[in-house]
């Protein structure tokens, strides 16, 4: 894989991990049996992120307000580094996510297993979004018949 492709793949799983719950991530890791050995490079740490918006949605940048976020960096014994960044204050999730990020970077049976777990998380996140969108769609106004949705 080219570096760019690797980054795209990594962006995808990091986004999925960031949205997953601590329970889901712990479950993903526990599927591996014993955790691999790793060193903590940066302890899970909670800080803030300034959320920026744009005036009118597309104009001048401005600061809307901060959000809590937690990050963690680990290194596996083979030298691969794992990073995690997510909104919220969950330090256990941050550490687990960083381990998963490191493991996913190699191509072996472990990463394949994790990858299928990531795919499943992505599907369930997409399903939740789709359901919320369809519930909103049920409240879409039809000015001609004044009937709500299809129900």
């Amino acid at each position, binding site marked *: 894989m080219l570096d760019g492709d690797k*980054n795209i793949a990594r*962006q995808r799983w*990091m*986004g999925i991990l*960031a*949205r997953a719950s601590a329970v889901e991530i712990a479950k993903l890791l526990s599927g591996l049996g014993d955790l691999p050995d790793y060193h903590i490079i940066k302890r899970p*740490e*909670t*800080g*803030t*992120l*300034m*959320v*920026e*918006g*744009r*005036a*009118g*949605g*597309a*104009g*001048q*940048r*401005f*600061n*809307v*307000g*901060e*959000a*809590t*976020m937690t*990050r963690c*960096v680990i290194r596996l014994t083979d030298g691969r580094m794992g*990073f995690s*960044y*997510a*909104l*919220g*204050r969950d330090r256990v999730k941050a550490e687990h996510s960083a381990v998963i990020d490191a493991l996913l970077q190699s191509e072996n049976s472990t990463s394949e297993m994790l990858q299928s777990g990531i795919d499943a998380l992505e599907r369930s996140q997409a399903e939740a*979004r*789709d*359901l*919320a*969108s*369809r*519930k*909103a*769609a*049920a*409240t*879409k*106004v039809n*000015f001609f018949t004044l009937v*709500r*949705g*299809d*129900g």
Partner: protein
Amino acid sequence: MYVAVKGGEAAILATHDLVAEDRRGDVSIPEISVEQIREQMQLSVARVMNEGSLYDEDLGALALKQTQGDMIEAAFLMRAYRTTLPRFGSSVPVDTATMAIRRRISATYKDLPGGQVLGPTYDYTHRLFDFALMANGEKAPPAMAADYALDAAMPRVPDILGDEGLMEVEAPPEHDPRPFDLTRDPVEFPAGRDVRLQTLSRGDEGFLLGLAYSVQRGFGGNHPFAGEIRMGEVTVSFVPEELGFAIELGDITLTECQMVNQFTGSIEQPPQFTRGYGVAFGHAERKAMSMAIIDRSLKAREFGEATEYPAQQEEFVLYHCDNVEASGFVEHLKLPHYVDFQGELELLRKIRREQEERLAERKEAAE
């Protein structure tokens, strides 16, 4: 002048215990959990996150629990907490055009691309008590779902008219500069749009609502239309230095309001519609709408309009809309001012004495 007062330690410790007992209320009633507040008092949590200027639903709920639901005290807790945390950086500006919409309405266009989506709202309720909620009975039936999802991206309504040149353009200034941050630098006047919008977005909902109402009632020159209100989830992305590429950190709920206002034009500008923008954490429509009206009224200077009303005067609005600062100053009056007051008391006695002496002298002279 404040005076250090000693001797109140025991009383203060006792008040901590008493307020904890007061907060708990009748112990025969089950204690409320932070999770319950987060899930069932979401609009209160949103307000605390906005005025505390920190997005964290769990902390917003905890703040409400700890303060017995006192919104401003809860916002104060959020502000105090954030000062203990390191700042990791700034997000990529959120893109509200790709919001996962749960509500989106326009009062200016009936048929607009993507449609009018009412979403979860009290707008069409009758404002009658639902005593079933008091009886703790019924489980809410699951909401109906359509067999199709909404469009993945919906145009922001003012951008539709923008194509005709009838709408004030909202474009980034040259080089798309980093925004001012009032948590790090003092506000100066005249204030830039970025300063105004950041201040308003953490401003008190009630204060901004009252000011927005004053604009509508004639204490300001604007006649706003709700061009669009949308609420839903936006993705928050961040570029960590160590990685050098953007990653998604998750989603936050935002409410955005685009107000459209008349503008008769000036020598340089032909008549066009002008814009006011509001955005808020969580589902907070009243806040976003009020903010959008005030954002527009504070553009008076840029449009060469007279600034004769409070809502048009940026120093007045920006210095007074922060409820944590405002309550700090108003409520500091509760602290001991014994020496100040003794000084005033002495002065008043002296003036009275002198006046009485003068009157007595004059009386003597007259006799």
